[in-house]
């Protein structure tokens, strides 16, 4: 993974001291509230319902064990012994003190971490596929490109005060685990007719109040042009995006207002001017960054573990269930990728304790080259575990309550913090997640339902991407009570689509029962091997609606 050089470290240290001084001046009354708000948000600090919330960046979801141990330590020292992973692969602390944030940042800087641009109307953390670098049909590892984008976005002087936040996601091949089509910019590595690798570029995706799927703006962008083209898009957006209404300020609204042809014309005109400037990438730089993402030293004899593994799978049904749901193939024979479920029974999705963090760091050192990844679905990934180690790893994870075999199933939900923590929330989410967990605790039932994506947001800001879930749940406030609107048929994958609302919202007590009715319709209607989303697409939402709102007599 990328290692800071002296310049990177100097920058990060200087940024900590700059923020320390900003905090000091704010507390001394020298910076007005509204202005400090802008400054603290650019450094990941929100003021929430109960306390501030600090969002720490995990660039493209990649960490090493030293960093994870540091996170554990920080939650002990400055917070309440746990952290929360988000859909944008970052980490949130729910209980830091405003005055202590500079110290937290200084500790993070020691391990090459920071909270730069994790919030605010600026260029945010770039995300990617959590299986980057290990999947057989990948065109190219997207992570070096994420790092190149990270450097370009960090403290960009021209784009620190955009109309609204700006998020970029990159995928390395045809599969999309990064929800790239609902990002402000989605970049897909593709090969053109001449066999050259470059990027397909989408622009103007986003969720929130007005969910929009990104539109194709360029079929093929040569690699060296990546930053000049991104800069052209950002400049057109910075100059033309709406600033009079924050709900209409995202780039998706501009692209829709101008139309993709006109928007693209303006970008191309700007790009023509800057395409051959110093910002054009050099082969040396690309090669240097790629050098940080060389394959790990895989053991040639890892394949020997396969026969042992076969026996272990035969002997232990629980282990087999975990293996089937929570691991996936690796392009190197004898290795597998393991998803560590942060969705244990009756715990807030994405939460992890200091003890678990430390243990995960140790396990990563023993079994995974010291590497830990965070995912868009609020889980963790050990991407390179030798077949012969899987059983031992599983046992350790199970003891840590991190081996629930539910990855990709109904209880592998993406859930935002909702009313319990977030001051923007209309409704609770964590309690409802618990309700769903209680109702659907039977693993055999979950396996029968199979691959399904349920996401729940506590308000229309859509932090949990409910619009692009197979089953989306959105908390709404009805006369002071929590109600939930349900959408069906969304997807954040390569076949991205927005879910359709099935009808009027349901009261809190009925959410899990409603989900159950929806699943009944699926079970009755599915064709052989048909996944939930495919059934919804084939039969439409009407049959589900009918069942959910049928009057009982």
């Amino acid at each position, binding site marked *: 993974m990328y290692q800071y050089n002296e*310049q*990177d470290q*100097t*920058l990060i240290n*200087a*940024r900590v*001291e*700059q923020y320390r*001084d*900003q905090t000091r001046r704010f507390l001394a009354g020298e*910076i007005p509230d509204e*202005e400090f708000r*802008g*400054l603290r948000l650019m450094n990941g600090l929100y003021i929430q319902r109960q306390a501030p919330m600090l969002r720490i960046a995990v660039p493209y979801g990649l960490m090493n064990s030293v960093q994870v141990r540091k996170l554990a330590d920080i939650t002990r020292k400055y917070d309440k012994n746990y952290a929360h992973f988000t859909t944008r692969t970052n980490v949130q602390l729910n209980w830091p003190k405003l005055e202590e944030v500079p110290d937290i940042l200084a500790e993070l800087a020691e391990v090459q971490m920071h909270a730069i641009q994790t919030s605010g*109307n600026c260029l945010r953390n770039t995300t990617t596929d959590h299986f980057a670098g290990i999947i057989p049909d990948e065109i190219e590892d997207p992570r070096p490109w994420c790092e190149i984008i990270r*450097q*370009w976005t*960090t*403290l*960009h*002087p*021209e*784009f*620190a*005060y*955009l*109309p609204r936040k700006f998020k970029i996601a990159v995928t390395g091949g045809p599969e999309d685990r990064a929800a790239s089509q609902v990002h402000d910019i989605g970049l897909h590595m593709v090969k053109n007719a001449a066999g050259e690798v470059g990027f397909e570029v989408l622009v103007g995706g986003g969720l929130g109040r007005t969910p929009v799927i990104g539109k194709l703006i360029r079929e093929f962008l040569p690699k060296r042009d990546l*930053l000049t083209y991104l800069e052209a898009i950002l*400049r057109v957006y*910075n*100059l033309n995006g709406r*600033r009079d209404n924050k709900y209409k300020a995202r780039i998706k609204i501009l692209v829709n207002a101008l139309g993709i042809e006109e928007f693209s014309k303006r970008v191309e005109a700007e790009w023509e*001017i*800057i395409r051959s*400037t*110093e*910002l054009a*990438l*050099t082969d*040396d*730089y690309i090669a*240097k960054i790629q050098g940080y993402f060389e394959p790990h030293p895989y053991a040639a004899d890892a394949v020997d573990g396969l026969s042992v593994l076969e026996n272990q799978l035969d002997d232990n049904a629980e282990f087999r269930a975990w293996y089937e749901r929570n691991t996936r193939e690796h392009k190197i024979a004898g290795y597998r990728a393991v998803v560590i479920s942060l969705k244990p029974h009756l715990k807030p999705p994405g939460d992890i304790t200091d003890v678990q963090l430390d243990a995960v760091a140790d396990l990563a050192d023993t079994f995974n080259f010291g590497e830990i990844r965070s995912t868009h679905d609020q889980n963790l990934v050990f991407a390179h575990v030798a077949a012969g180690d899987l059983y031992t790893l599983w046992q350790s994870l199970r003891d840590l309550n991190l081996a629930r075999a539910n990855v990709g199933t109904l209880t592998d939900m993406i859930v935002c913090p909702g009313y319990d923590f977030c001051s923007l929330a209309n409704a609770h989410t964590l309690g409802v997640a618990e309700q769903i967990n209680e109702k659907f605790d039977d693993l055999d039932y979950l396996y029968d339902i199979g691959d399904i994506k349920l996401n729940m947001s506590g308000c229309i800001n859509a932090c949990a991407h409910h619009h692009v879930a197979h089953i989306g749940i959105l908390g709404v406030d009805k006369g002071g009570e929590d109600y939930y609107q349900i959408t069906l048929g969304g997807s954040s994958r390569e076949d991205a689509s927005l879910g359709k609302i099935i009808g009027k919202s349901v009261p809190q007590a009925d959410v899990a029962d409603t989900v159950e009715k929806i699943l009944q319709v699926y079970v009755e209607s599915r064709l052989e091997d048909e996944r939930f989303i495919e059934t919804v697409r084939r039969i439409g939402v009407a049959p589900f609606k009918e069942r959910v709102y049928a009057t009982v007599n």
Partner: protein
Amino acid sequence: MPLLINRAVVDDSWLLVDEDNLTAHINEDIVVPYELFAQHLEQLVNAEGKLGVRINGDQALELLLQHLDALSLVAIEFPAFTDGRGFSFARMLRRAGFAGQIRAEGDVTRDRLDHMQRCGFDAFAIPDERYSDAILSAFDEVPVHYQGSADDERPIFRQ
């Protein structure tokens, strides 16, 4: 309102004119609002004194870019510190070869000065109540730049 140029407070030698006193001062060193510039273009670019134009994000930078040779100063207004359009304006003026003064006006305060300078601003009109000499330390707080800037176009990988 202290005016900061090259990290020192200086006297403002420019006169801001409006519709009413434009004719009286047309041959002096004046700054005109964008609307006046657009209206009296011919007259202004041919006048004797030096010419500056004050512009904001709602107005067309294009018009200024077409007459850069006639301009010695561009004042860019920040109606709110959150309005980032001015950063792009400065950048575009510099890359078009504009060597005159680019002045930031309006909601211009300490924590944006460094970014402004990197984008090409060299003069900052700071509201009295937000000015103190300590503001001079706002520049170069972060000594490493990944991106090129007005005084050095090279991004980190070419530095």
